[in-house]
């Protein structure tokens, strides 16, 4: 495992760190509102919350340029926000409103945004591995220096296409980074029951540069991501990054009784001992890079910002029924 940046770098990086802290809080507050919308029966369908995993999306995306590409998953709100999406258009999309990123046609699992290089979330497990690899193919052919990041849960390790595209990426030396978010569960099954052998070796076997990192430590995620992104941008080829993390909520907002597949105790331990925001905040305070009150203010600010975004989305109109037949063909 890669360790986080050393304290002496702290002062140089303080802007970055405060921004990363803010982004993580934004994601958490966003997701809290999503849960709220579900509970208030205001949201159509379901949603998969990213709470607990914020350090991964933020650590990786802060190592990217705005023009770099990402692909995301069913648990994708965090990736979208970390890449720069704005909460009001996201909430509007979650509610199926015309003002949403996809004019209401995509919903929670399909947020896409060319302006921030977001090629789209995907509701097929591993469904975007090809797309992310293809974006890297374009980047290389067009020589535009962009890098592509493919986020996926460890459940995607079960899909053969992942190995097909890793092979392609390595053969063509494509600037793509496969970021595996191992949150221990694929829906309601512990990953150890569905994952034989050694995860990192599955990438190494195809010649990819691979690394694992504590996905609850945003500084560590950022540091290793930066290295892999630079490497990819230089033309040194694809990489695989395994992030150990945890989702605090259920598989989706409706997955409330979870004890048949994981214990409350386990959930508690992750929340209290390894929370990426709390621990990072504590460290920032210890290093005297931020004071506790300022961090609290950040939380409050973002909470109210998210509430405003929700209000916007709730008030926004649905698309007109005629729009159903638009956008099928370009």
């Amino acid at each position: 495992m890669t360790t986080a940046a050393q304290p002496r770098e702290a002062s140089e990086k303080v802007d970055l760190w405060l921004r990363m802290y803010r982004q993580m809080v934004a994601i958490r507050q966003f997701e809290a509102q999503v849960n709220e919308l579900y509970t208030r029966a205001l949201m159509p369908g379901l949603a998969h919350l990213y709470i607990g995993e914020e350090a991964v999306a933020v650590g990786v995306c802060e190592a990217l340029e705005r023009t770099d590409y990402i692909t995301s998953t069913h648990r994708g709100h965090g990736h979208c926000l970390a890449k720069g999406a704005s909460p009001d258009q996201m909430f509007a999309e979650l509610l199926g409103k015309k003002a949403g990123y996809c004019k209401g046609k995509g919903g929670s699992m399909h947020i896409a945004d060319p302006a921030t290089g977001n090629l789209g979330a995907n509701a097929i497990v591993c469904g975007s591995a090809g797309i992310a690899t293809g974006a890297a193919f374009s980047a290389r052919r067009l020589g535009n220096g962009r890098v592509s990041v493919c986020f996926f849960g460890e459940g995607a390790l079960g899909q053969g296409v992942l190995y097909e595209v890793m092979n392609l990426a390595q053969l063509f030396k494509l600037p793509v980074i496969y970021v595996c978010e191992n949150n221990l569960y694929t829906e309601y099954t512990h990953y150890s029951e569905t994952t034989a052998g050694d995860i990192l070796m599955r990438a190494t076997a195809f010649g990819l540069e691979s690394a694992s990192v504590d996905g609850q430590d945003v500084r560590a995620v950022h540091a290793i991501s930066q290295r892999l992104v630079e490497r990819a941008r230089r033309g040194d080829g694809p990489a695989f990054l395994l992030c150990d993390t945890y989702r605090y909520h259920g598989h989706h907002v409706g997955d409330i009784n979870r004890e048949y597949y994981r214990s409350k105790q386990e959930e508690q331990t992750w929340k209290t001992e390894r929370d990426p925001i709390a621990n990072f905040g504590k460290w920032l305070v210890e290093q005297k890079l931020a004071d506790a009150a300022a961090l609290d203010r950040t939380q409050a600010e973002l909470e109210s910002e998210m509430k405003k975004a929700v209000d916007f989305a709730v008030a926004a109109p649905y698309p007109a029924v005629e729009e159903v037949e638009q956008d099928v063909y370009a």
Partner: protein
Amino acid sequence: MPETGGRELTFAQAIREALAEEMRRDPTVCILGEDVAEAGTPFKVLSGLLEEFGKDRVVDTPISEAGFTGLAVGAAMTGMRPVVDIMFGDFITLTMDQMVNQAAKVHYMSGGKWKVPMVMRTTMGATRRSAAQHSQSLHAWFCHVPGLKVVLPSTPYDAKGLLKSAIRDENPVVFFEDKMMYKLKGPVPAGDYTVPLGVADVKRVGEDITLVATSSMVQVALGAATLLEEIGISAEVVDPRTLWPLDEKTLIESAKKTSRAIVLDEGYERYGVTAELASVIATGAFYDLDAPVKRMGAMHVPIPFSPPLEDVTVPTEQTVFEAARTLCGR
């Protein structure tokens, strides 16, 4: 249908009962799929089977639809009767090679020497606010493939009886369950009975127009028939129950009798099931039809997330009522 003494089950319970009874009867029947064991699938259709039959027969798999479907093909050839569970019908895209190039062809290519007695259970149906990758009804693809049988039950009674026939069949059978019907209740006998594959069922007798409908569209047709009755139109509702083998005779006879027909199916209308059924009727009842056969399927658009848009993509009682009225010249 035999007397059930008032016993009612939901559609999901009927499926579970068929599986449990078949697993008790035949030790080679086993279940393979994602989250089928402890979780009993996200739809809870399989709850309790793990407890009765154990992990060797209710087998959680990785997210590897192609892999475990292929495994089932080989297992079926060599003495097992696997029932694979593909959570959303949209994911059959991943199994097409195993089902079409392998399962469907093994018997023929081997000159009848090997056979593949397996069942794939999967889902269909929109209006669950699940967006374009979790709402499709793609059964037309399998209907097109010689070597496969395709079953679409519309009631709890049929679900239990047809699933038993499917499991006992010596061929690969694909069994589509509309997930919006899982909670639908209906009479189901407690003991063993089967509904044969290839026999249509007249769900309602009528004189003026034939509504041929599949899966949950049967319920829609029955609802429309009630509305039509109020304006003096007597509709006959015919459910083919299996799309291959197809009971052409019953469909044609009904259309000949009423001289008007609408075919209803939740798959995309273009190049789908409605085309085959309409064409069979148009040919078979050519000299008796007073109007062209009307087709009603899903709109030619990916299923949108936004509720007001999604709701117009599939036939409803009201749209079927309107279409039937127009066809009858009222």
